């Protein structure tokens, strides 16, 4: 069943390619079915995994390494999150993209992304991980350039250069690991044992290679350039990049690197947690300041993502169970909230063609659901109490206080203030701004003819938006599922 989650999407891709541009309903049906199927299959593993049963599965022996897959609590957490959000990504994409060009390419790439993401999450060693990591990189390219404008192609080039360079560094890291550990590249609880014997210089090099390589996907600041550029893509793709697959895979890789390659003991012994904290703090503050200057909604969201991702890196590198729990939970919450933000922003852009913050003025009257979603997401990301984000921030701060590093806790406070600073304008404009926006609502030429503006957007866009908005609120008030998986993950990552 596990292999099915990984390889079925690739088969489905072929089916989509064969169906062609014409058979829209069949394609949509298949896409929804595969998304729901994935979620069900991933969840079906939870019983066994939470009970502590791991069963690695070797698919092929490739002489130097094996293609092996495994489920552990961390991959269960990520897998269920992503397959769950995929349902909304698919349905939102179907709505958003209806009538666009090259949909076969779009949806087949999307499905390859699903398979690759699942492959990354369930891989049990570095090489298997790397194969799917690169497949994901390549599969996202057609999505980035989907608009086929000059800007999109330039963004595509930037994307490819950054991501492939990152992949190369990762690959070098893998070779070095292979070399240092004498051929053992399996993710091991507590780290790969053979690495302890390696010389510190080599291990620092390894840390550099992995962090720089994964840092591209996780958008650590000097390596983040591709992420705001890739905003030219359609909104569902941005959501995919920022909330669902791509950057989360960078974070996942970081967590795997810290806990399953180096291992907490070695990591702490070499003071790597302090080293890794530097770029993370740097990124958090700089990205927040950069976001203050942005006047486009999607750019603002991009920098907000960069800022939030480093929370997770900072929390994960702390090696403290509470901060780690905060990181894992934040991974989930951030995804949910960011997808809310993107969907509401996307709905606004699709319906009104507005991209600037100032243009959102007074929009709440014409598009109440979208603006409510945006406001809730913004509040959540900023970390205001009733909505999801505050829980994880609370854990971060608590963890760092327990670690007696209050200044790292202070970073979160500063960042929160900055976030309120940059998220306030759009929300305030939307709800309390002058009514200049309402006259300019223009009919988008792509919307269906039968949609006579009874709703502010087609239902297949509004429903996912509403669901993820509600989720953001519920997770804030009583979200227990992420904690169940998260605690299990911590037990497996940080052995007593």
């Amino acid at each position, binding site marked *: 069943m596990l292999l099915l989650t990984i390889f079925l999407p690739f088969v489905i891709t072929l089916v989509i390619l064969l169906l062609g541009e014409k058979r829209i309903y069949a394609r949509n049906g298949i896409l929804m079915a595969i998304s729901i199927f994935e979620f069900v299959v991933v969840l079906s593993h939870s019983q066994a995994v939470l009970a502590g049963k791991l069963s690695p599965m070797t698919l092929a022996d*490739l*002489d*130097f390494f094996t293609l092996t897959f495994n489920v552990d609590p961390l991959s269960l957490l990520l897998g269920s999150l992503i397959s769950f959000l995929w349902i909304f990504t698919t349905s939102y994409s179907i709505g958003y993209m209806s009538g666009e060009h090259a949909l076969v390419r779009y949806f087949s790439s999307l499905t390859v992304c699903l398979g690759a993401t699942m492959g990354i999450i369930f891989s049990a060693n570095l090489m298997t991980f*790397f194969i799917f990591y690169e497949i994901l990189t390549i599969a996202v390219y*057609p999505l980035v350039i989907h608009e086929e404008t000059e800007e999109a192609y330039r963004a595509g080039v930037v994307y490819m*250069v950054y991501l492939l360079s990152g992949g*190369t560094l990762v690959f070098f890291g893998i*070779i*070095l690991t*292979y070399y240092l550990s004498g051929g053992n590249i399996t993710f091991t609880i507590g780290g790969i044992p053979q690495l302890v014997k390696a010389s510190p210089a080599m291990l620092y090099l390894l840390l550099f290679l992995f962090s720089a390589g994964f840092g591209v996907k996780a958008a650590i600041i000097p390596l983040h350039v591709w992420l705001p550029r890739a905003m030219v893509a359609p909104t569902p793709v941005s959501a995919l990049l920022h909330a669902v697959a791509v950057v989360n895979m960078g974070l996942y890789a970081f967590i795997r690197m810290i806990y399953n390659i180096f291992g907490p003991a070695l990591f702490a012994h070499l003071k790597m947690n302090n080293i890794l904290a530097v770029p993370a703090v740097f990124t958090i503050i700089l990205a927040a300041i950069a976001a203050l200057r942005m006047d486009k909604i999607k750019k603002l969201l991009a920098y907000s993502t960069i800022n939030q991702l480093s929370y997770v890196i900072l929390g994960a590198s702390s090696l403290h169970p509470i901060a780690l729990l905060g990181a894992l939970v934040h991974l989930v919450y951030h995804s949910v909230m960011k997808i809310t933000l993107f969907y509401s922003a996307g709905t606004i852009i699709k319906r009104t063609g507005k991209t600037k913050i100032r243009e959102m003025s007074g929009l709440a009257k014409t598009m109440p659901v979208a603006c409510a979603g945006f406001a809730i997401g913004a509040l959540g990301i900023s970390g205001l109490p009733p909505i999801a984000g505050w829980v994880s921030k609370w854990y971060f701060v608590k963890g760092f206080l327990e670690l007696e590093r209050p200044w790292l806790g202070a970073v979160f406070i500063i960042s929160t203030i900055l976030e309120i600073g940059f998220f306030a304008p759009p929300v305030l404009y939307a709800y309390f701004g002058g009514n200049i926006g309402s006259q300019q609502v223009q009919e988008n030429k792509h919307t269906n003819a039968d949609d006579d503006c009874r709703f502010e957007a087609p239902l297949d866009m509004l429903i996912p938006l509403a669901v993820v908005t509600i989720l953001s609120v519920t997770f804030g008030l009583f979200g227990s599922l992420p904690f169940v998986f998260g605690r299990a993950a911590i037990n497996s990552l940080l052995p007593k």
Partner: protein
Amino acid sequence: MIHLFSSASDNGSHLQVLIPVMLICTALVLHLIYYWRPRICPYIATGIISLSFISALILLVKVIHSPNGYLEYFAGHSWSGQRYLASGQPIGIVVRTDLFGALIAALVTGLGTLASIYSKHYIPHTIKTSNIGYYYCLLVLMIAGMAGICLTGDCFNFYVFLEVASISSYGLVAMPQTKQSLEAAFKYMVVGALGSILLVFGIVLLFSATGTLNMAYAAQQVHKIVTAPPGNPLHNFRHLVFASLGMFIIGLSVKSAFFPAHAWLADAHPAAPSSISALLSGLMVKSTGVFLFIRFLFTVFGLHKHEYGMLLAPLLMIIAVITILGGSVFAIAQNDIKRMLAYSTVAQMGYILMGVSLISPAGLEGAILHIFNHALMKSLLFMSAGALIYKTGIRDIREMSRIGYRMPVTMVCFTVAAMSMIGIPPLNGFMSKWALAKAALDANLPMLVVVLLISSLLNAVYYFRVVGTAFFGRAQQHEEIPHADIIRNNHGHSLLQNSYGYYSLADKDRPNENEQELPWGMLMPLIILAAAILFFGVKVGILREIIRPAVQVLWR
């Protein structure tokens, strides 16, 4: 037949000589057959090459099962059965095939079969009809030469076969008779002849020093000379050995297009017909260049045994690094797809040299693995590029947008090979890069791994450019190819000369415009090669089981 497969008195096999002999004999009658029955000529060529492929496979199996890892066959000895002089020097020409040679011979004949199948449809649109007979003649001769190089064990035999292969390839490069191909052929010929003459020089010096042309015996003598203490008369022959080594290194560097001498390759390989480009890039630079490089450096000069190996290694390593980076950087700058592939070949030759320069069994293993894998990948790349040119007449990468939708199978095959070239894991290119990287780390030279990775990244840049344009390029219509003059080929099709001076069929005369993308005869080699790339990526163990003992034989 009496002793067709194994010789009566030696441990050799008749196949060792029969493979080149039957190819050469067929080649010489092929152009006569073309006069007589033009239509059966391609079939005869394909048949004889595939027959030699089967023979090479049988030979490979025999070599694998031979106790020493090589077969020795004495050609042209006296009837009395005397094989050696009293001093232990063999009489006559010794055809000595070890595992390495047998493997490459199988590769040569196998790829030759595919190229010859591919040629049947491709060639009539590239060269004059009256030359087709000569084309097949030269093709078979070239394969005979390359197979002969791999099978013999005699210095001068190497030279003769090398020249057979080289001269036929000069003719093949010139065969389209366009400005480019003629100019490229001239350059190729001058540089190639210079390289060959340096090789003769090397062989003569080696002969002067050791008094033999037999490689195994020469190796013993070289060992004696190099280890002779000062005062021993043999000590005086050291200089000859060193001079000979230098000549071999320079001559073979020219032949295998290492850095300062790489320019001819970038001209010659793109100018040839694509089926020949595939063989030139895939096999020619290897069998006449790197194969002999490994053969002479390890088997004869014993680089791993003597101290001059340690002196040469850094030099070779520097050349390798410059070749890798230079080739990759130049490849990025190209707009002509075949020229880009040719520069990519230069870079890949650097990889192989890098494996050799480590002077370790692991490095050699990686180098041989890469020889094999690169032959498959680059043949496929050139053949699919040729198919693009055959169908659409487009050589310029910038004009290729959306071509992947017009010719899906071809472009998918191209993509598979390109991904393998970049080093995407389950494909065979990754396996050899991995082996090279591991060897470099074993030799404690992580910088080489960095070079390898930078080059992979550059590979990714230029191959992705093609694949990206082909599948996701701008949908705009490309401009009309500016054509200087229109000529007519032998089928009455008008040929357009584009801005690069290459001829291509005009749109209306393009074959099978509305039918399937390519004739099956051209599609089949592509698909077979793509499957082979995948197969040898997943089942790399099969190759390593052959290569590991092959390296042991070389290492002795």
